[in-house]
């Protein structure tokens, strides 16, 4: 296409009337000139004109061919199709509305998932080239499967920045949670180059600079938009003001724009220099040397990920800046950080695919309904389509026109889909926040949860979705209704059987199957939630409260206060869980038992722990007051583990070799393996207790750093929790306190959320399916009225007719139910074969027969109701009226 061509085409489009007039003039001039020639040769004007026209051939045809030469006929056709479609919509607005509403619902639900996916996976913040960002993760492999993470210290980060050459810039960050003016806030402690490395700018004031992060660090912070709103109500004069955090004033130097969240899924409240970490006690260890850091680098453009990984592995193996396990091999992994979750694209897709599938089912059911509707409408449009076909329109042309109609409706639906997805997300967030257990409410508010907005990616996704759904619901009916016998149609005999019943039945079966799948999921989650809420958790939750300290230096003061508090009856302690290897040596006394080596979880607990949690001893004894460290050489073993180690019973009094695997910086230096005597065996806590621990208990005391405190309180645990929270915030502004009851409720809460999502989807699926079933059956009966009338006239009773209609419609429902159930069971079986099984299996029974039966019952009942109305109508047809009518 050259410039002249383009000019002519554009002119033909814009100045259409002018171009048409010119064409007309040119052609008529030719005819007139030819006529003149014949007149000059002696013919009468009329004869001359007739001859000229005969010579020229049909003028409109030539004009049409000239238009084709212009190459704008495609555009012309599209415009004409669109205008025609709008006229059709005006004639049948209800059908158009139904289609738009159904497709908008389906597209909106899929867009909901995509909005979250988009929010989590693509950095919509104004970060420069986010695809270059990688987090450095190091593990040290001691044995296959034993790969504890290396703790990144500030020194290791500085060394990496100084000594390696794979990143154009590297920064480090560490999460922090604390209180400002009594409110729980969440911040990131970041190196001074954080904002420069990400390429983001403040809206007010300045970002953090390298100087802020030198030495002990300047007490300054940059607020996020959320933090600005939360702490200063968007005061524009915030720069230079100070907030008190852990006894030190911090000056606000800058505010970030609304869209910037940092690198997390939700926004931080502020960013402060990492060098302040020592003062802020960001983790168990307060020394700057031991901080747990996330190190993120911007890969140099010329560096490949593999080359960088290799270079970093070489660097890491020579490092002494972090605690090394002797003889271990350092593994370096670069994790993409272009999104807010450290996932690569396949991992993310895998994570989201169940949601896309479940929400997509609604779209699919909706498309099936719309497809059926279009088929039914195709029959009433047969005469119109027949006339157009016999006037010479090609079938392709009419199919294109019908598809244009469908696509316009789908695009309208896509526009509504944006609103549907935002509404759904807002509703879901509102429901989740208002029903969260009270202990978690404050924590949840700190997360700054917000409904992710939509952007051009969501729009593009919706437009693509509209095109795909048009193909799904529009193509088959368009092909179907244009396959007409012209002669019959022109005679006015509309063929009744435009669509074979088999295809309709298949559609119904698919719809019912999809609804069954969703409702079974809902029922399984509901049963799980009920089970989690009602079954005995196996630990004493009625009066137990868990306290986690954030500032270790305040431990003694806090313990003192707790022991003196009238609300607290007993104080026990337990440390965070780690792993270890337990080995029963082949002792001469038990030659029949081979030495066993088992990898187990370890938990350090104080002597009061079993009593506070109400865990009964199966045999032996618990720890004594004197046994407060691993030096005591005694352990207590969970019932499950004891049964594994000593299948023949016994165990108390046995000596085992125990080797702990270090996991937290507090555990360095790595403890050496030691021989321990098993003094007791204790009952396992229930899987729904939120602390389903199976392993080895080691002794510790509440004074040991890093332990959680388990309290038995007097009176209502929730009231005690509030009272303690108020009294102790002065000592440790960031400490966490949680009633064990709501910890167990949390699991029920998560399951209840899953239930509601599945129930809403299942309900929508069922509603769409039932309405589809109803309309299809009503339509079929209308079509079969003649047949039914004949049967009745020949002596069929209403019972016969009802049976005929029911058997037609209930068979696909039955097939759909069976298929949906089988699919759910198959998915469940596959799921239980994956590593996730232990997590899922503890909280729900994926093959719960009650759940399957209940959802089948609901669907069967709903279908029966939907079917019964048209059936009754069929059974009460007046055969004489029906036959006369035809």
């Amino acid at each position: 296409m050259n410039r002249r061509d383009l000019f002519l085409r554009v002119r033909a489009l814009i100045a259409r009337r002018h171009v048409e007039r010119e064409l007309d003039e040119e052609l008529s001039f030719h005819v007139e000139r030819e006529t003149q020639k014949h007149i000059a040769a002696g013919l009468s004007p009329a004869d001359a004109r007739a001859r000229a026209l005969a010579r020229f051939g049909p003028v409109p045809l030539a004009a049409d061919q000239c238009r084709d030469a212009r190459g704008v006929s495609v555009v012309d056709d599209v415009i004409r199709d669109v205008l025609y479609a709008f006229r059709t919509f005006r004639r049948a607005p209800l059908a158009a509305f139904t289609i738009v509403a159904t497709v908008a619902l389906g597209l909106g639900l899929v867009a909901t998932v995509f909005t979250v996916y988009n929010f989590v996976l693509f950095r919509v913040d104004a970060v420069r080239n986010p695809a270059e960002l990688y987090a450095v993760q190091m593990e040290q492999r001691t044995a296959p499967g034993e790969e504890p993470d290396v703790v990144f210290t500030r020194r290791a980060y500085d060394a990496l920045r100084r000594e390696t050459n794979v990143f154009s810039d590297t920064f480090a960050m560490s999460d922090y949670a604390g209180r400002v003016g009594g409110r729980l806030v969440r911040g990131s402690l970041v190196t001074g180059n954080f904002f420069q490395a990400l390429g983001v700018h403040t809206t007010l004031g300045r970002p953090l600079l390298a100087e802020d992060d030198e030495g002990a660090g300047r007490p300054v912070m940059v607020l996020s938009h959320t933090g600005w709103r939360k702490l200063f109500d968007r005061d524009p004069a915030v720069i230079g003001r100070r907030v008190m955090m852990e006894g030190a004033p911090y000056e606000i130097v800058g505010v970030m724009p609304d869209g910037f969240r940092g690198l997390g899924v939700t926004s931080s409240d502020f960013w402060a220099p990492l060098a302040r970490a020592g003062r802020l006690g960001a983790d168990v260890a307060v020394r700057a040397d031991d901080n747990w850091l996330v190190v993120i680098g911007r890969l140099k453009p010329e560096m490949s990920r593999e080359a960088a990984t290799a270079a970093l592995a070489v660097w890491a193996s020579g490092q002494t800046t972090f605690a090394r396990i002797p003889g271990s091999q350092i593994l370096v992994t670069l994790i993409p950080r272009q999104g807010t979750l450290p996932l690569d694209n396949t991992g993310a897709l895998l994570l989201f695919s169940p949601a896309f599938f479940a929400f997509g089912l609604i779209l699919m059911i909706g498309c099936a309904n719309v497809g059926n509707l279009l088929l039914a409408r195709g029959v009433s449009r047969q005469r119109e389509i027949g006339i157009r076909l016999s006037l010479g329109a090609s079938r392709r042309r009419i199919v294109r026109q019908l598809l244009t109609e469908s696509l316009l409706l789908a695009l309208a639906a896509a526009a509504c889909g944006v609103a549907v997805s935002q509404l759904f997300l807002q509703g879901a967030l509102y429901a989740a926040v208002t029903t969260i257990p009270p202990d978690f409410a404050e924590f949840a508010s700190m997360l700054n949860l917000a409904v992710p907005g939509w952007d051009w990616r969501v729009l593009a996704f919706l437009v693509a979705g509209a095109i795909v759904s048009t193909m799904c619901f529009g193509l088959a009916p368009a092909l179907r209704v244009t396959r007409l016998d012209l002669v019959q149609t022109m005679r006015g005999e509309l063929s009744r059987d435009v669509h074979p019943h088999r295809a309709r039945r298949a559609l119904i079966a698919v719809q019912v199957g999809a609804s069954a799948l969703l409702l079974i999921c809902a029922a399984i989650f509901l049963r799980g939630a009920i089970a989690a809420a009602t079954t005995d958790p196996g630990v004493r939750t009625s009066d137990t409260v868990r306290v986690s300290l954030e500032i270790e230096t305040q431990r003694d003061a806090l313990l003192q206060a707790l022991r003196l508090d009238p609300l607290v009856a007993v104080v026990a302690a337990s440390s965070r869980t780690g792993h270890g290897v337990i080995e029963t040596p082949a002792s001469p006394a038990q030659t029949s038992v081979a030495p066993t080596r088992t990898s187990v979880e370890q938990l350090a607990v104080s002597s009061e722990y079993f009593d506070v949690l109400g865990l009964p001893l199966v045999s032996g004894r618990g720890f004594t007051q004197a046994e407060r460290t691993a030096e005591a050489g005694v352990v207590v073993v969970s019932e499950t583990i004891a049964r594994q180690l000593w299948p023949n019973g016994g165990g108390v009094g046995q000596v085992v070799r125990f080797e702990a695997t270090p996991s937290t910086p507090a555990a360095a230096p790595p403890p050496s393996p030691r021989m321990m005597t098993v003094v007791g065996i204790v009952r396992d806590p229930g899987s729904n207790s939120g602390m389903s621990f199976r392993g080895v208990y080691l002794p510790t005391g509440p004074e040991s750093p890093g332990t959680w405190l388990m309290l038995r309180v007097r009176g209502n645990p929730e009231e005690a929790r509030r009272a303690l929270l108020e009294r102790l915030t002065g000592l440790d502004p960031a400490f966490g306190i949680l009633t064990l009851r709501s910890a167990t409720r949390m699991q029920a809460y998560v399951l209840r959320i899953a239930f509601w999502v599945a129930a809403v989807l299942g309900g929508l699926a069922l509603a769409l399916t039932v309405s589809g079933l109803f309309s299809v059956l009503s339509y079929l009966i209308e079509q079969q009225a003649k047949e039914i009338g004949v049967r009745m006239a020949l002596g069929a009773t209403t019972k016969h007719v009802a049976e005929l209609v029911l058997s037609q419609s209930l068979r696909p429902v039955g097939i759909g139910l069976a298929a949906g159930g089988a699919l759910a069971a198959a998915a469940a079986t596959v799921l239980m074969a994956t590593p996730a099984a232990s997590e899922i299996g503890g909280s729900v029974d994926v093959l719960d027969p009650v759940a399957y039966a209940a959802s089948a019952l609901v669907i069967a009942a709903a279908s029966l109701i939907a079917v019964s109305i048209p059936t009754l109508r069929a059974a009460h047809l007046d055969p004489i009226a029906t036959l006369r009518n035809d």
Partner: protein
Amino acid sequence: MARQTIPDLLPGTLDLLILRTLQTQTLHGWAISERIQQISQDVLQINQGSLYPALHRLEHQSWIEAEWAVSELGRRAKYYRLTPAGRRQLALEAGEWERMTTAIGRVMKLA
């Protein structure tokens, strides 16, 4: 000798004839068809209906350009003129035509 309408000839011939006719003068559509008929001594008669689509196509390809001017009848007519690009195209197609007819002529004589 039977009259030949041009589409019965080799494909693309109509374009070549139009370009050649416009080589020396500016003409409107009817004059082009008359001229071809005259010069070919009535052997070649253009299907007049297909003349105009061909003219428009050539115009889109920038080989000819059009201009409205007052005709011998005293009313406006659309006159076509060869462009430099059209002149090059004509040289190309004419050479091609020459080669083809020579080849066919040889075969007819010698085969």
